């Protein structure tokens, strides 16, 4: 690690010095982001003050590129990390560094050091950074991408995975090896070059090596597998605006903390279709995943060292109450799920659509437990259960139906409404400790935007979430005023007016203002933020309640 960091630093220096005289000295780009929070105690909402009184996270990326060569580093600081982040991230240092050579002419692309990679739809491998969650599972090793011909892409990876940060990157224990092949048949077969029907098959395989040992279950002494492999076969088919795909994935026995150390094989089947019938665009997806959680260390849980990615079936909601009170995250040990969405626009200038048209969408998503039979005795200890089919089990995880309509009425006014009906099983996705079972909720949103003057506008949101369960009813009001292109100010009030405990019927008021100039953005906020669940792409983290000030700065060049 140390040597490679020095090497990358050296490359920066040398490339700068030698290239200053040349005609193409190369390009340096980068970005910086800083997040600072201060905390005040608020016993009513459960906000506490950490011993350091403030939290500070900072990141800076620098990338040097010259022709096919590039190298980069990311400097990170957690002094101490802001609340809601893994508290074990500590200190300052280099969290990411790499060097890459991409010879496009000969179809060779080599990376050493850290890299992010995804095979197919991610069932076998997806390394990524979700900085807002403190999730970064970058690989640290070597990646080779080869294009023997334009239509065939071969990828090979070897590496360890980022797990922690303490004055620098700390990798996890397991070693990952893998490869993928993607073939563009239309590109490969000359007679199909111009065909409307496109078929792109892909295959990938990833294996983990981790030192083993024995575990004891009842009277059994069981040996842990040293090598665990997961692979998938997928095909995407495209015909004009229609697109479909199917992926089948499987994993050999992988006793882990996630699955209670059972030796059952994992499996997944996913297919989707999108397209349009006249003006109605649609999306359909069906997915069943069974025991497919795969980490580079079998003993870890939650956000630590995930190797693959099983996205949540529900839509990523954007309105505060719909997005943060009951966000659904995939049940990693297995679920059977379905999603269907319809999009339709009333045409501009039509009688119903108005001068600017009207956009509408309807989304339905549901997820159930797997259709399984529990096993008894020794088989139960070893394999846990047997899956009867790819179909749905009896227990509902989530059902989410939402309807949206958006219309621009004039040059200066537009509005959007949303209704959502939600059934959410807090036993499947434990987002609250106050209620165990299914929360039934109706959510209503009205958003308006008024252009008040040249380059100025006022946007408001009125939201209500009505439920008999958990913390009861909520209302949220947001008002945001913008002076394009530089300034904004906003205030938000979340009010838990229906909390069964009258003392907890609290207003969470938060105000913020900011300045934007090109790729630089500074914002300052102050107020109360409720305890909640913050999610990116189906991965969620609990964020504690807080009361205080926040400053964020981002910049890129």
């Amino acid at each position: 690690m140390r040597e490679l960091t020095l090497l990358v630093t050296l490359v920066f220096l040398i490339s700068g010095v030698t290239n200053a005289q040349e005609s193409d000295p190369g390009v340096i780009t980068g970005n910086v982001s800083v997040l600072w929070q201060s905390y005040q105690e608020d016993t009513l909402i459960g906000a506490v003050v950490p011993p350091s009184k403030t939290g500070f996270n900072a990141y800076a990326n620098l990338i040097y590129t010259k022709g096919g060569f590039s190298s980069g580093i990311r400097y990170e600081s957690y002094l101490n990390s802001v609340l809601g982040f893994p508290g074990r991230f500590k200190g300052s240092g280099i969290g990411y560094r790499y060097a890459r050579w991409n010879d496009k002419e000969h179809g060779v692309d080599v990376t050493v050091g850290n890299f992010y990679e995804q095979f197919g739809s991610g069932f076998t491998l997806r390394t990524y950074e979700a900085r807002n969650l403190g999730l970064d599972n970058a690989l640290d090793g070597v990646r080779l991408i080869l294009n023997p011909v334009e239509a065939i892409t071969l990828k090979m990876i070897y590496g360890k995975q980022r797990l922690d940060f303490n004055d620098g990157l700390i990798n996890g224990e397991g070693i990952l090896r893998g490869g993928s092949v993607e073939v563009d048949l239309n590109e490969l077969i000359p007679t199909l070059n111009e065909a409307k029907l496109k078929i792109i098959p892909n295959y990938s395989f990833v294996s983990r090596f981790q030192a083993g040992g024995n575990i004891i279950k009842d009277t059994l002494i069981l040996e842990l597998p040293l090598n665990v492999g997961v692979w998938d076969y997928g095909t995407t088919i495209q015909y004009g605006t229609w697109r479909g795909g199917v992926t089948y994935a499987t994993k050999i026995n992988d006793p882990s903390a996630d699955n209670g150390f059972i030796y059952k094989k994992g499996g997944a089947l996913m297919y989707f279709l999108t397209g349009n019938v006249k003006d109605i665009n649609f999306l359909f997806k069906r997915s069943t995943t069974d025991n497919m959680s795969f980490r580079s260390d079998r003993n870890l849980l939650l956000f630590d060292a995930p190797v693959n990615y099983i996205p949540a079936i529900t839509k990523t909601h954007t309105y505060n109450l719909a997005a943060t009170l009951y966000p659904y995250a995939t049940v990693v040990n297995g679920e059977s799920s379905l999603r269907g969405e319809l999009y339709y626009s009333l045409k501009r200038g039509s009688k119903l659509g108005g001068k600017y048209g009207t956009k509408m969408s309807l989304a339905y998503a549901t997820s159930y437990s797997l259709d399984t039979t529990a096993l008894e005795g020794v088989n139960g200890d070893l394999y846990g259960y047997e899956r009867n089919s790819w179909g749905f089990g009896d227990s509902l995880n989530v059902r989410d139906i939402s309807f949206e309509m958006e219309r621009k009425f004039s040059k200066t006014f537009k509005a959007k409404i949303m209704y959502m009906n939600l059934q959410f099983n807090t036993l499947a996705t434990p987002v609250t400790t106050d209620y165990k079972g299914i929360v039934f909720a109706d959510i209503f949103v009205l958003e308006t935007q008024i252009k008040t003057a040249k380059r100025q506008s006022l946007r408001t949101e009125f939201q209500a979430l009505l439920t008999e369960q958990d913390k009861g009813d909520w209302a949220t009001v947001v008002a945001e005023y913008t002076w394009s292109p530089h300034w904004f100010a906003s205030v938000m009030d979340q009010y838990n007016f229906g909390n069964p405990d009258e003392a907890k019927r609290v207003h969470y008021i938060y105000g913020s203002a900011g300045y934007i100039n090109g790729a630089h953005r500074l914002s300052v906020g102050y107020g109360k933020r409720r305890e909640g669940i913050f999610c990116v792409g189906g991965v969620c983290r609990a964020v504690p309640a807080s009361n205080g000030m926040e400053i964020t700065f981002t910049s890129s060049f």
Partner: protein
Amino acid sequence: MIKSNFNGMNYAKSLAIAVFFASSLLPTISAQTVPSVKLKDLTGTTIDTGAFENDGNPIVICFWATWCSPCKRELNNYMDYYADWQEETGVKIIAVSIDDSRSTNRVGPYTSSAGWEFDILLDPAKEFARAMQVINVPHTFLVNGEGEIVWTHNNYAEGDEEELYEEILKLVD
């Protein structure tokens, strides 16, 4: 768990030196161009971002996602003016979705229904976004006829399209 033998101060120092040298060279480095990453469009065709071209006319690159409300407001507003902008300046807008495999299938139906006539590319692993130093979306870049990035804006507020259009006009005057 293996922890590297690591001294933070030394790295901080070498980093500071590297940044110092690098920044002293900034006036001499070449103008920033669009890095090369292979992405798929909605028809499944592979596009090399380093080879974007528009007959010498300006190109606008917008990073967005189906779950990002300001991004959709921005691109829907651009759509209201797109025909006029194209006629007057020949500009082309490329909308790059950073939706991951949870929502990447939503990009086709949404953009088709919204009537977007932009070139739409998919960047589900955020490889292009990282290469362009995009931290959050929306993030918009204006590229001149020589392929150089001449203007950039992070965030979107109603009316920002007026500033963008002024910048586009500067390139064609």
